[in-house]
């Protein structure tokens, strides 16, 4: 178990270094921030002075070492656009994004898991048919489009919810629903197919034949095995949502990280882009690590497999 944990941790650290390198060099092929940030009327000397102040005229490897040594201790420098420390900007936006992603995930799970389980145990039933239709729709309807339709219908027409922002307790309903739908679709399908597959396994037949109560079989044998693929998908999806949903947050004017990403890219705000990318990577890697450890906890094959 310990060895497993350490090896996963090592892999994550390596990945993170890879991300830092990639992010640093990728943002630099997108354009000259001095040109974009300075007014159009600025003269060549103004531009040069700006590059000097910002350190953009130093050799690339010097800039990289500077960035890397800072990033390791969480110092990403000041945002070029917002003039405040980049990491602080990211952390300011984090609660809103966690709020949205959390509600979206809970919404998706509450609906998806029962539908998936019922569908898996009763393939072909009405619930299964509707559930699969819903899953397909959730996964295939473009959610930026759905977001606009929801605003028009539920906010403008029915006035049930605010059309944007995070002012009231129910402001989160529309964005969370839109954000959660594709995840819901995926989890319905996954749960259903996992139940179907596991039901046909020898050990379930064994359990039946030794006279176990169906309820015991479901809870002890089926659910436990269904949980493994579910956890991996939930982990990945939650990490993805925490990275900030750019479309959804922008459309609903939700004050989270997704909007900040959109802004930082638009302004070629190198320090901010880097801070967001590295921060998001840490979150995703952390979640993956937790996911892996949860597997090991639930499934002894993984726990003992490596030894």
């Amino acid at each position: 178990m310990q060895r497993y944990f350490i090896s996963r941790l090592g892999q994550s650290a390596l990945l993170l270094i890879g991300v830092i390198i990639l992010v640093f060099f990728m943002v630099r092929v997108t354009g000259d921030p001095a040109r974009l940030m300075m007014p159009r009327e600025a003269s060549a000397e103004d531009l040069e002075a700006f590059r000097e102040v910002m350190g953009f005229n130093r050799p690339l490897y010097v800039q990289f070492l500077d960035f890397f040594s800072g990033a390791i201790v969480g110092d990403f420098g000041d945002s070029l656009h917002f003039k405040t420390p980049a990491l602080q900007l990211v952390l300011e936006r984090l609660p809103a994004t966690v709020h949205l992603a959390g509600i979206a995930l809970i919404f998706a799970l509450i609906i998806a898991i029962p539908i998936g389980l019922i569908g898996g145990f009763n393939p072909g039933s009405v619930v299964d048919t509707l559930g699969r239709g819903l899953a397909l729709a959730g996964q295939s309807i473009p959610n930026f489009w759905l977001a606009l339709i929801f605003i028009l219908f539920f906010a403008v027409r029915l006035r049930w919810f605010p059309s944007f922002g995070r002012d009231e307790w129910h402001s989160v309903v529309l964005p969370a629903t839109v954000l959660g739908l594709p995840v819901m679709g995926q989890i319905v399908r996954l749960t259903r197919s996992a139940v179907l597959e596991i039901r046909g396994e020898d050990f379930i037949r064994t359990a039946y034949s030794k006279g176990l109560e169906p309820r015991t079989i479901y809870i002890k044998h089926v659910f436990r095995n269904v949980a493994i693929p579910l956890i991996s998908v939930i982990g990945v999806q939650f990490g993805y949502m925490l990275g900030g949903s750019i479309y959804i947050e922008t459309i609903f004017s939700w004050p989270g990280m997704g909007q900040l990403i959109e802004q930082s890219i638009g302004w070629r705000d190198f320090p901010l882009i880097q801070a967001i990318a590295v921060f998001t990577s840490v979150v995703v890697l952390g979640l993956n690590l937790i996911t892996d450890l949860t597997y090991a906890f639930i499934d002894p094959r993984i726990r003992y497999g490596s030894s």
Partner: protein
Amino acid sequence: MVDYARGGEELIYFKPFFFLNAKTAQEVSIIEGEENMNILKQLRPVFGLVLLAALILAACQPQEIIVTQVVTQEVEKQVVVTQEVEVVTTVEVPAEPPPDMPIGTLVRAVTTFPNSLDIPQTAERQASTTAWNIFDSLVAFNDAGEIVPRLAERWEVSDDGTEYTFYLREGVTFHNGEPFNADAVVFSWDRAVNGGFEYSYHWESAVSVEKLDDYTVKITTEAPDALFLSIMADNWGMIPPGYFQEVGQAGFDEFPIGTGPFKFVEWVKGDHITMEANEDYFRGMPKIKTFIIRPIPESATRVAAIQTGEVDIVTRLSSEEAQSLLGVENVKVIKYPVTRVYYIAFNNLTTGVGQPTEDPLVRQAMNYAVDIDAIIDALFDGFAKPAIGLVATSELGYDDAEPFGYDPDKARDLLAQAGYTDGFAMDMACPAGAYTHFEEVCEAIAGYLNEVGIDVSLEIMESGQYWDMEAAKELPPLFGDSWSSAVGEGYPRLNGSLRGWDASYSSWFDDEIDNLLTQIETTIDQKERAELYKDLQAYMRENPPFIYLYEPVSFEAINTRVQNYKPRSAETYDLFQTWVVEE
């Protein structure tokens, strides 16, 4: 899997085969049966989807009714638009009298997040217009675009035009109670010039700012600077020296303090900025109690939020969105021209050297070849104005000459005169996603040029890369762009796009244009300058350095409870004079 099943239950492993009960057998057969599902069963999820689609359609039904309403109102709409234009251009007689005390809340939606409320650091228009509610300059623009006294009561200019003496208003205090005086002016200038901000150069037009006595300052410019007062009105926000020194730049960014009509209250990043009325304001009490700025980047959401009444003012709507709001209860649409001009630039410095476009006849021909009116009708519902000469309509010295107009025969004649009877081929580039419908505009232009025999191959490029190449003068000999100006004159735009190697985004140099621009720079007298602008425009019609396109129109929508709100062509507004009617 088998391994695992054996793990804990090996002892009873063999039993099931003898006791295979009926229930399990049934279930197994169902599972196996699934593999051979008949077609009907396979279609089940499809039925589910159809059902769901039907539900969604049903849910959308009321929406479709709205769409048909919009269509039926089309005729009425046009009438409303012309009314609104009049509302903006004539003096509006408010329906409700202004209150004696600041009352109510006004929410203004902006399209992007202000990056800072410290004026020399504000990166774009919407940040600076937000900040200007907190600050004042020595002088200001009025609604007619004229310079009027603000924190200065009056001023004198020396005969050589380089020394300004400002007599400051007495008894003005900052929001924290600090007095406004000559020291504050000196400190504000000093801080901005030495702050290393992107916009420091707007303060650098003054080489010294001296205190003569507590309420008199002398400001010296290097040379006569015709735009000095305009730039001052648009950039020189006064800050309190004592407070700034106490809290530092970071503290000031966090909680800005000025003399303006509204006091800063709070800024929830990415969500809203709140200000409240400054009841001690030296021009009198503002009429709005609480003013809130909310960024809503997505325009469809802005349109929704004005309809629900969640916000009172929404800006930067497209003509389609403005049309969709006409006739909506409690919403009024405002339309005003923006001081921005779109153009397709020629190049005589790098890629355009030796090309046919060095011949003025060819450049004239290309202006005649493009049907701007048709483009404006098709892409902007007619809401834009054909441009001529790169000076916008509301700017000083605008020459109301006829645009070239669409005349493809004349274009072909001119091309023949220039010796290009068979036309020629040329590359063209335009930025993607930078301006409304600009990609389509460029495609249309390429099409029109092709019709008169100029074989244009158009490349639409990512805007970041585009600006880089434009600055490096590496774009093809035809490239599209636009330029705004907020100082009431076309000078910054003309200077930036026509000063050859001296200007970052220029790819054109012409001695006569350069000569006229130099004269405009140093002539202080407004009338003389207006004449110079006219001369320049006349010259630029004969020798066009651009294919002139259009001046855009900006749409805003306001809640009808908002009174006396007058947005200006530079997208600024003076909220001091605005009030809201409380229901």
